[in-house]
């Protein structure tokens, strides 16, 4: 039960927000629904305990928000400037984290950042394949690849182990 407490709280919060009213009825109703849902649809327990650095996490969130603005502008530019002549690239990028949760956050972050989305994740070889819109030559591909590694570094700074963060720094250093 105690393991399910965070999801019960979260679901209750969503329920209350969806109703838009903070009344005893909506809260009790939310708790009832949340307990029922977590009992019926059990999630596999997340085994990995991650170090969470709140301040870094906030920085990451702000960066993601900014990245989304840049992303929207950049994709719009491609639409207006290149249109049907737009080119893309699918590149292999080293996957630094082994934690499922961190990889999920990374994939989400990559898909929000300028012109890129995760296509395929190959856990066995620690590689993922990322599609990028915009590169027109190999220099452009390398720039996009560097961006993906940099995003991994930012996510690892907020959530990952220090080792993995150091590895991302090393990788980034090698690429510049």
């Amino acid at each position, binding site marked *: 039960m105690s393991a399910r407490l965070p999801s019960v709280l979260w679901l209750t919060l969503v329920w209350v927000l969806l109703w838009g009213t903070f009344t005893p009825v909506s809260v009790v109703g939310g708790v009832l629904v949340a307990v029922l849902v977590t009992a019926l649809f059990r999630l596999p327990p997340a085994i990995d305990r991650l170090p969470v650095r709140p301040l870094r996490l906030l920085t990451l969130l702000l960066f993601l928000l900014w990245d989304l603005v840049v992303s*929207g502008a950049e994709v719009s530019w491609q639409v207006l400037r290149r*249109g049907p002549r737009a*080119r893309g690239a*699918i590149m292999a990028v080293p996957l630094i984290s082994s934690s499922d949760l961190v990889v999920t956050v990374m994939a989400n972050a990559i898909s929000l950042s300028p012109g890129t989305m995760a296509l395929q994740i190959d856990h066995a070889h620690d590689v993922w394949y990322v599609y990028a819109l915009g590169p027109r030559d190999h220099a452009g591909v390398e720039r996009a690849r560097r961006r993906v590694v940099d995003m991994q570094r930012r996510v690892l700074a907020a959530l990952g182990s220090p080792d993995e963060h150091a590895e991302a720094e090393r990788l980034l250093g090698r690429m510049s």
Partner: protein
Amino acid sequence: MILDAMSAVLLLLGALSCVLGGLGLVRLPDLPSRMQAATKPQTLGLLLILAGTALRVELESAVTLLLVGLFQVITAPVIAQLLGRSAYRGGSVSPELLVVDELAGKMPEERSS
């Protein structure tokens, strides 16, 4: 008054971003690039419109708008990835539109994941 102006600017910027996203769906050449247009300017546009609306409604409704934005940001990338992957597997990503394709020949065979 200032609030009204801010709200108007946000709403207009959001609408512009959505229009550009829609234009991208028509103008861009293949599925993965169109996915970019459907996820980036569209998400940005929605968030801007939500922010613009939030300035003008009561706090309780504004919190619900926050939830809308949150779900959009969480779900759009997941759908983009699933669609992109299926498109690649189904062969609707044209190689001549790619500068490089490092996934070529490396897509694992059918595997439930």
